[in-house]
């Protein structure tokens, strides 16, 4: 397995609270991504990063922000969680554009 960890692996929170999910890689890959997976939707891209402090929006970025201060860490923040953000969140990494993306173990988030 590619060296990708996500924390926490499970989280329950209440509507309106801030939540931060962490993705950590030991592969020194340049690109990192955050996806969410929901039944009937497959996976959808939230944000991605193409280098330290270089990030951009994906398909479903509303309500999410990201930061990447180090190559190995990519943080996803829900500023004020809503029930519609209940999902499984996957981080992925790749060496470059068009290269295979490798996925982390996922974080299950429940917003009550």
């Amino acid at each position, binding site marked *: 397995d590619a060296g990708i960890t996500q924390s926490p692996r499970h989280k329950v929170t209440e509507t309106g609270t801030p939540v931060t999910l962490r993705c950590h890689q030991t592969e020194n890959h340049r690109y990192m991504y955050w996806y969410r997976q929901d039944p*009937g939707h*497959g996976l959808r*891209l939230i944000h991605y990063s*193409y280098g330290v402090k270089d990030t951009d929006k994906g398909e479903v970025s509303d309500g999410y922000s990201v930061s990447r201060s180090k190559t190995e860490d990519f943080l996803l923040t829900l500023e004020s969680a809503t029930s519609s953000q209940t999902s499984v969140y*996957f981080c992925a990494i790749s060496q470059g554009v*068009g290269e295979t*993306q490798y*996925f982390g*173990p*996922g974080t299950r988030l429940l917003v009550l």
Partner: protein
Amino acid sequence: ELKVEQNPLFLSMQEGKNYTIYCNYSTTSDRLYWYRQDPGKSLESLFVLLSNGAVKQEGRLMASLDTKARLSTLHITAAVHDLSATYFCAVDSTYSGGGADGLTFGKGTHLIIQP
């Protein structure tokens, strides 16, 4: 907007049979990926198809890509129970003019192989 459609979305089959999963996409791209996901687990990369006519095989699975038809197929030969999983195809948005360096996924094919 890039759209990726898989069919069928659900497939129940018997061991020993052959079947094909189809993946259509809406805009030009020459990079297509197949992933496998077991229940409650992460996604595992199966194949990367990088050009028109590309064919990759691993065990009982074979994937192909026809960029002109915007179609990829995942063929299962003589299915065994261990291949039960959800299979996703994904298209690289960068190569389809989507502008984002990410993948657009199909909704997945939930495959059950019964003894």
